[in-house]
């Protein structure tokens, strides 16, 4: 099993060294990314393989971190994060890095792409699933609700969507920007299988994903309560959406992740 804190360390190093990138929303995904890449073949280019669409594209450092941890991208490539002539773009670009399944970054679009993948997998009779990660603030986008409305129509039980409910977005707390509540009831009303878990608890993640994979007719939405910046005490604050640590902060964070 991939260690989530190793992923956090790689993210921290990338963002610290390049003075740019999103730490908070990457850290809140460390457990789910470690879990999914430990249990599913998400780096294959086979059409039949399972897929992962990171709709909240700004959290791409966590994907680069897991690909680095798996030995699929090198130290040299990591050192090109957000630099010119690099496969590691500021937001995911599947044409520049072959391990990515979608190009995202303009919020709200990834869930529709994921529906396309889930439908495609079904048509080619693949037994595999498509996973999609959306941000909590991201679901303020209207296209997300078009997608929520449609997926049950096609009985896409091979689609599992994770909402990274870390409670904050660019300008502050989600509840102050545009509150999502009652979110469980809303998605249930759209006829999804909805499961609420702690997004940092591996056992809860495992049980929820298995529940989703075993559902025979509905797509599954896993509402993950998470902590933005999880893993480093002082980073657990919404100001760390896109903020870059100074040297002292960096060393302190690395120490805590040991």
């Amino acid at each position, binding site marked *: 099993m991939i260690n989530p804190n190793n992923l956090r360390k790689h993210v921290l190093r990338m963002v610290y060294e390049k003075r740019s990138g999103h730490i908070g929303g990457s850290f809140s995904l460390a457990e789910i990314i470690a879990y999914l890449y430990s249990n599913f073949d998400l780096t294959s280019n086979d059409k039949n393989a399972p897929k992962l669409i990171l709709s909240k594209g700004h959290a791409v450092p966590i994907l680069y971190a897991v690909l680095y941890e798996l030995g699929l991208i090198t130290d040299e490539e990591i050192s090109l994060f957000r630099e010119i002539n690099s496969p590691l773009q500021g937001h995911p670009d599947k044409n520049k890095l072959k391990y990515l399944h979608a190009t995202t970054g303009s919020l709200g679009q990834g869930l529709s792409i994921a529906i396309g993948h889930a439908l495609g997998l079904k048509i080619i009779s693949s037994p595999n699933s498509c996973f999609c990660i959306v941000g909590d603030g991201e679901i303020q986008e209207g*296209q997300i609700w078009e997608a929520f*409305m449609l997926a049950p129509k096609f009985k896409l039980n091979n689609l599992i969507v994770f909402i990274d409910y870390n409670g904050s977005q660019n300008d502050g707390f989600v509840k102050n920007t545009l509150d999502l509540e009652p979110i469980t009831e809303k998605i249930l009303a759209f006829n999804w299988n909805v499961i609420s878990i702690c997004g940092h608890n591996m056992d809860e993640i495992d049980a929820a994903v298995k529940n989703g994979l075993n559902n025979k007719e509905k797509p599954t939405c896993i509402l993950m309560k998470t902590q933005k910046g999880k893993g480093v005490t002082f980073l657990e604050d919404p100001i760390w959406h896109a903020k870059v640590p100074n040297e002292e902060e960096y060393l302190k964070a690395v120490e805590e992740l040991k």
Partner: protein
Amino acid sequence: MIATRDAFGNQLIKSAKTNDKILVLSADLSKATKTENFSKEYPNRFFEIGIAESNMIGIGSGLSEYGFKVVMTSFASFLTGKYDVIRVSLAYSNAPVILVGTHAGLAIGKDGVTQMGLEDISLMRSLPNMQVLQPATPIETEKMVEYILDSNLDGPVYLRLGRQPVSEIFDENYEFIPNKGIVCKDGNELAIFVTGCLLDEVLKAVENSKKNCAVINIHTIKPIDKEIILKFSKQCKKVMTVEDHSIVGGLGSTISEVLSDENPTLLKRIGLNDIFPESGVPSELWEKYGLSSNRIEKSILEFLD
């Protein structure tokens, strides 16, 4: 006479008989965009997404990863209105899909401006990786659609179709040659470049004007056939463009860019002059906004005066 949208619907079914990779996504307008017959004949390859063009575009992007020829239809105005979704999920992703925008130009008439595709070429043309095609007649539509459904696309294609029945200019020997303009009439006084359903109107206008104009049909606006533009801009003293679209960013702009770069030539752009038109009977709208054969003829005579 049938419309280019009808010819598209007919060819879609013809091609689907031998190509089982064709999938059609609809955003509720299957009757108007002429995919209804496909939906009846191939219900397992037709997906009704509902009135949600953005969602449809994203789904098409995902589906295109599985080797399918994904065709997505709606009115040109509604489809290209989802610009950022097309930009990121299709163009930047370089998804090999076919976006079909119907009811281009003024032809929807009485329904008014909101339903008219008048800036769609401009929007789609600005996107890297995107090809922009617009056939002029039913036969050209069939051959073009057959070609794009049977070839390996290396990125997204925007296909612009008309609502109104149009006269046939070509015959069954017509061969669709990608990216190449078609000389419908040679001449040396004025080179007129036209795209889409106004081709017949332009040919009538030229005939009535008694001027020695060349008429070139541009079925592929992007990538543009520079060679034919340069050849005819050198052969004729002046150049004119005619399109049922805004003069901002459409065929006229495309050709003016080529001429400015390589052979500056006096150019008159005929189209909607950076305005929103209005509801009305289509023939009256084309007359009022300068796109009837009568008004095109007047423009030719004034320009050559």
